């Protein structure tokens, strides 16, 4: 019979801890994928899958993923909103799996907003 060491116990804890946070409605970072009809039609589901894939990595912090409806900018879908606790929400437009991976690495992990994806292309917005 194998015997668990303290290091292994801690490793299991760290891996599973992230699973439990969203079940309590907790999580330091909240990512909202807007999945109205327009969002889904322009590829929000692929963006969501990419996000979940990235989250499966070992080193990520506690993230809560939510889906919500259309925000009214249907031509700029898929839209993803990132809310880090204590910071104002950041909205990313015209997302795709490739962009999602970059936002994940740079904003969610490293904490730097990916400026270029936040542009709506309309100065009034």
């Amino acid at each position, binding site marked *: 019979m194998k015997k668990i060491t303290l290091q292994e116990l801690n490793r299991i*804890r760290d891996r599973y801890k992230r699973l439990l946070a969203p*079940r309590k*409605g907790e999580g330091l970072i909240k990512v909202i994928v807007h999945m109205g009809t327009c969002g889904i039609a322009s590829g929000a589901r692929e963006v969501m*899958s990419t996000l979940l894939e990235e989250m499966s990595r070992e080193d990520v912090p506690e993230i809560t993923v*939510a889906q919500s409806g259309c925000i009214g900018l249907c031509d700029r879908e898929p839209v993803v909103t990132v809310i880090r606790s204590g910071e104002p929400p950041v909205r990313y437009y015209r997302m795709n799996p490739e962009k999602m991976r970059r936002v994940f690495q740079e904003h969610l992990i490293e904490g730097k907003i990916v400026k270029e994806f936040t542009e709506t292309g309309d100065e009034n917005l």
Partner: protein
Amino acid sequence: MKTYRSYVLVCMGSGCLSSGGKKIKDAFVSEIEKRGLDKEVKVVETGCIGVCDLGPLAILQPEGVVYKKLTPLDVPLIVEEHLLKGRVVEKLAYRPPSGEKKIATLQEIDFFRFQQKNVLRNCGVIDPTSIEEYIGADGYQALAKVLTSMSPEEVIEEIKKSGLRGRGGAGFPTGLKWEFARKAKSDKKYIICNADEGDPGAFMDRSLLEGDPHSVIEGMAIGAYAIGADQGYIYVRAEYPLAVERVELAIKQARELGLLGKNIFDSKFSFDVEIRVGAGAFVCGEETALIASIEGRRGEPRPRPPFPAQSGLWGKPTIINNVETLANIPLVILKGASWFSSIGTEKSKGTKIFALAGDIRNTGLVEVPMGIPLRKIIYDIGGGIPKGRKLKAVQIGGPSGGCIPREHLDVPVDYESLQELGAIMGSGGMIVMDENTCMVDVARFFMEFIQEESCGKCPPCRIGTKRMLEILNRITEGKGKEGDIERLIELGENIKRTALCGLGQTAPNPVLSTIKYFREEYEAHIRDKRCPARVCRNLITYTIDEEKCIGCMRCVKICPQNAIVGEKGKPPRILQEKCIRCGICYENCKFNAIKVR
């Protein structure tokens, strides 16, 4: 390591299981697969969430929406609307009873908001069949801390400092009990988890074992290390098949990871746990009777001292702790004695789990800090009394406890305050009774229970409670005599003083406390042959109010005894000699034309 965006937490406590929780879970799994969401959404079976009257239920996280009283037919709609489109299905979601339009999320519901879930922190969150999830919730960290950095004496000191007292009823300081067993010299010692929960209406221990079995095992391992034991037994009743199954699985998983077994975390400490299934005798919750039962003898108590800490199982030093006490241990070790003792009152520390039942809106499992006013539990968490009725009393502590009447509703719930009023903390059964409850009948119910469960070893309990029950039966049948109340008090006081074990010593409590607060009800039964709450059948008569009756014949048709006769359009007549006072006519009359006296 797979992560998910949403979790469907389906309650699999015994309550929800019996109302069809398994079917709900299966429906979610297949529907989510059908919709291709199985890579994004995970269905988790959890332990008791606490709101048992709303079951079967599912909580959708991270949104915290509670879907209640589900049928498998509701599931496709929830999957399509909530999980696929992100819209709450309003007609199935929980709303506060106050009639607000707004849907309340888990964090906003009063029932949960006013609770402090420490011991129950994992119940309803983790999958009780996964040891990894328990570890993810800091499981077995306390055991690791104890084995790598604390001496047994330091562990005992920490528990003593925390002020933790036994949650099984008597409230003996846990650290002190452990110290006695530590100091007892012996080649072999044992730790026993008392999961022989027997109070009518109580299900705290069952829910903990079903919802978070590892926390109890971890608590036992820490206790074993502290006193120097290497073997533990969980004594659980056979009526709790799901608890037995989950604990068995938990023990197996812990053994596989080496969290039970030889040299845990490469220390010198070895420990293993086995289950002993009891046959459900109430007296086996008494520690000496429990030990006798594990040893294979008849479950009968013996005089103490010697206490089990000196001479317990097979004559060896043994500590017996209640399920909830043990589940507190990992918390005390991890968060520290000063954290623990900051919750509660001066002499009662930490939280206590109660099983709310009876005439109350939200029945279920609640955990509150010690010292909380009883009113807060009944009205803020429990949602008050249904049908616009008034509260009469709260019965706390089951057959060993007593009643708290309405005028004492602001009593802080702690060991001493409850005892002063003639009740006890007990293991946590809390039965709420409205104005339609007959207190003599309640006392009679508990005495009948005790009479059936008395083991018969000592005469005060065997004969004394029999006599008390006979008097109570007589009173409720309308044959009470002057002097009955005094005789009940005298018998009760004598039984309390002379019975052998805790069962007998506390058995008169429900009678004595109802006499103390509701003596006039006893007197009404005895002198006026009247039951003020209209419960005792021999003391009530049903008649027809001829002014209100329109002669619809409804009562004539539904009377199971054909005791109501008459013709359409005229008020019928109740034949008293045939009437069995079942009350069916009273409940069904649409014109309130049936009078009770």
